[in-house]
């Protein structure tokens, strides 16, 4: 009940959920960051490894292509028409027979070269004489070749280089394979040049082949690339600024690994791969996995928290309910059951039981102390009149004895014992001279005496602990015939405890001495009681008293020394005074 308060601290379940969700969230975030970093690292390694492989593959492929192109060039250089026309042209020029007009031989050469260019994977095919003069050019970029007097540059390599050479013609960079045209006397009669333009077209081809970004640079200047303009600009800066290492570089805020896959003279071809792009895909996959993990973890945490909270809060609620019941029943003595749900709850229960035990012990001591005080008070009251000294004590003993005979429960006996002690507490308000007055009382005095049960009840009402005894104090002068006071109850309307105390009180009064008479014997008292049984006293109580007396005689004999044998000799009860 107490746990269901709408306001106040949150419930245990809420706290458990908060703690476990918080833990899960922190763990997930840490795992995410860790995995992300390690994945990025892994991807970077993989990308670099792939680049290394690509470097080798592309390098080998490039070598292969160049080899094949060279073979192709050498095959083209075996063209008989080309050779015949070139050699004849040279011979006739040597023989000084040329007359300035364009020789049909040159037209033949151009025509042959056009046909060759159509079949070869080159951007420009050129035929040069031994003097280095370009006699014919064909191919896609023949215009650029002619425009920049490439022959002048090629002249410097007027040999048969094993390596490719690099020339710049018409703003285009060409990688050139040069093969000789030879006759069978071993003489070289001219050169066939196959130029491959290192331009965007070439970069794109490499890109499509390798699925890597490619860039071509000559002497630190970017010439062609498949990078985006921003990346290209960054790469240009990187090329210029420092000697390139194999470490990844940032291009347009994206880390790129790169490798050189080939080069001719000052020209370099690079393959680049974005680490971030590759990592993004992997991280997206891992995010998906982590999201699933997160959902799973949250569900687990939810289930775990609910279970745990149940395990914790159920015993506590049980405990709380038990306490509520205990409070409602005002029963402090019954120990709470050990639930066994958890050591802590059991400890709490045990501790509480100890507390309750000590509380009830304290209460018992308090009650004992109360009882002692009340007994003292009652004795003090009794002592106001020497003739009634010890009266309350005796009535109490007698009443309990009667109660035993009547087989009243223990609780009632306890109430009876204390109630009987207190039955005349109301006489505290009666002046001493009235109480001790030896002679007959006036009406006013008599009324004052008759007030004492009401006064006593009023006193007891202010003490909650004595509430059970109010009836005894208030009603111990009621009579079965309804002539008693203060309420005039009849018969069975009078509580049994009040009836018992009434009889015990009367018996003690009869057997006690008074200022004006001797105490009468027990037998007289019984006789007197029997005489009035049914009217003044309840008959069954008197019967019970008769049975109880023999067992009590040695103890309860009051100041009078009269034994039971004198009972019949005793005069009848004193005047109306029976208190």
């Amino acid at each position, binding site marked *: 009940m107490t746990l269901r308060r709408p306001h106040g601290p949150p419930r245990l379940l809420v706290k458990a959920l908060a703690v476990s969700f918080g833990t899960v969230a922190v763990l997930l975030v840490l795992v995410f960051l860790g995995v992300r970093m390690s994945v990025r690292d892994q991807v970077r390694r993989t990308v670099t490894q792939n680049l290394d492989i690509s470097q080798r593959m592309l390098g080998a492929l490039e070598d292969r292509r160049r*080899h094949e192109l*060279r*073979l192709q060039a*050498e*095959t083209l250089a*075996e*063209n*008989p*028409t080309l*050779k*015949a*026309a070139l*050699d*004849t042209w040279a*011979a*006739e020029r*040597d*023989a000084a*027979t040329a007359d300035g007009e364009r020789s049909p*031989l040159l037209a*033949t050469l151009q025509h042959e070269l056009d046909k060759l260019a159509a079949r070869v994977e080159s951007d420009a095919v050129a035929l040069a004489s*031994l003097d280095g003069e370009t006699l014919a050019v064909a191919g896609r970029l023949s215009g650029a070749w002619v425009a920049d007097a490439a022959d002048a540059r090629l002249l410097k390599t007027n*040999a*048969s280089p*094993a*390596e490719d050479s690099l020339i710049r013609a018409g703003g285009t960079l060409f990688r050139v394979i040069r*093969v*000789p045209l*030879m*006759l*069978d*006397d*071993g*003489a*070289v009669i001219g050169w066939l040049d196959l130029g491959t333009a290192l331009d965007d077209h070439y970069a794109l081809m490499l890109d499509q082949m390798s699925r890597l970004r490619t860039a071509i640079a000559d002497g630190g200047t970017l010439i062609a690339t498949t990078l985006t303009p921003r990346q290209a600009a960054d790469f240009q800066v990187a090329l210029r600024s420092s000697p390139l290492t194999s470490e990844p570089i940032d291009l347009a805020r994206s880390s790129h690994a790169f490798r050189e896959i080939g080069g001719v003279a000052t020209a370099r071809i690079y393959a680049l791969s974005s680490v971030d792009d590759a990592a993004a895909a992997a991280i997206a996959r891992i995010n998906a996995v982590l999201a699933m993990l997160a959902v799973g973890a949250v569900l687990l945490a939810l289930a775990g928290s609910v279970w745990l909270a149940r395990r914790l809060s159920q015993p506590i609620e049980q405990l709380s309910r038990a306490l509520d019941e205990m409070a409602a029943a005002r029963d402090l003595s019954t120990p709470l059951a050990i639930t066994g749900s958890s050591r802590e709850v059991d400890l709490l229960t045990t501790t509480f039981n100890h507390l309750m035990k000590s509380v009830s012990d304290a209460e018992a001591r308090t009650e004992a102390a109360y009882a002692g005080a009340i007994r003292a008070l009652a004795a003090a009251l009794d002592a106001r009149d020497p003739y009634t000294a010890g009266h309350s004590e005796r009535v109490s003993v007698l009443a309990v004895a009667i109660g035993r005979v009547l087989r009243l429960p223990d609780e009632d006996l306890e109430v009876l014992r204390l109630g009987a002690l207190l039955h005349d507490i109301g006489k505290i308000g009666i002046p001493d001279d009235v109480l001790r007055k030896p002679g007959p009382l006036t009406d006013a005095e008599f009324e004052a005496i008759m007030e004492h049960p009401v006064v006593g009840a009023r006193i007891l009402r202010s003490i909650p602990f004595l509430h059970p005894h109010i009836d005894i104090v208030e009603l111990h002068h009621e009579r079965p015939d309804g002539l008693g006071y203060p309420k005039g109850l009849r018969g069975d309307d009078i509580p049994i405890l009040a009836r018992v105390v009434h009889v015990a009180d009367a018996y003690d009064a009869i057997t006690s001495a008074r200022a004006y008479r001797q105490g009468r014997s027990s037998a007289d008292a019984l006789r007197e009681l029997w005489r009035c049984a049914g009217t003044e006293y309840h008959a069954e109580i008197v019967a019970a008293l008769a049975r109880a007396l023999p067992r009590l005689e040695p103890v309860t004999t009051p100041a009078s020394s009269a034994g039971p044998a004198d009972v019949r000799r005793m005069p009848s009860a004193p005047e109306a005074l029976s208190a």
Partner: protein
Amino acid sequence: MALLMAAAVVRATPVPDQPQATGTISGRVTLTTRMRGVPIATSAYAPRTVTRQGSPGAPEMRSVIVYLKDVTFQGTLSATPASIRQEQESFSPRVVAVTRGSTVDFPNFDPYFHNVFSLSRTATFDLGRYPSGQTRTRRFDRPGLVKVYCHIHSQMSATILVLDHPYFTTPGDDGSFTLAGVPPGEYTLVGWHERVGEQLSPVTVRAGSTTAAAISLPVNDAP
């Protein structure tokens, strides 16, 4: 064979048809560099995919012709027929000189087809392809240089020097040559090699005497 051929050429030197005193030019041709056999590194890879028959290995001197330049010959020019054999995927000899109006035979001694064609302006022709054992003949009526090739085997080449006069010869293997029956006068002696071209040397021929001449064909600056 080649020797015989060369002898034939020499023997074909025209006999003067008018009884006129003539002189002789005699000398030696020196080759200052080996023209053949210098290996050329063409590439890092296997240089050629074509396998060839070995060259007949004729001495380099047989590719040399010694003649007088710009001579106006008076009289009837006799024909000096020659023959260029096609054997082992080569023309042999590689160089011949003939007088204008002479014919040249191209017998095929190889077991496969050959072709003879020329793109030279002096004589543009194509004898077509013909099998082993056949011979085709071409007559050259204009003086000048005729380069001959085979369309089937691109490395084959030969040169025919068609001259307007009979004053020419091929040196012997040792380089010695003799030009007899030359009218007295000032001449330009030419030592010609198919790769080097003409090497000029002025000579004076006196009747009845022998003029000594030395021709040095220079180092080719190619490879």
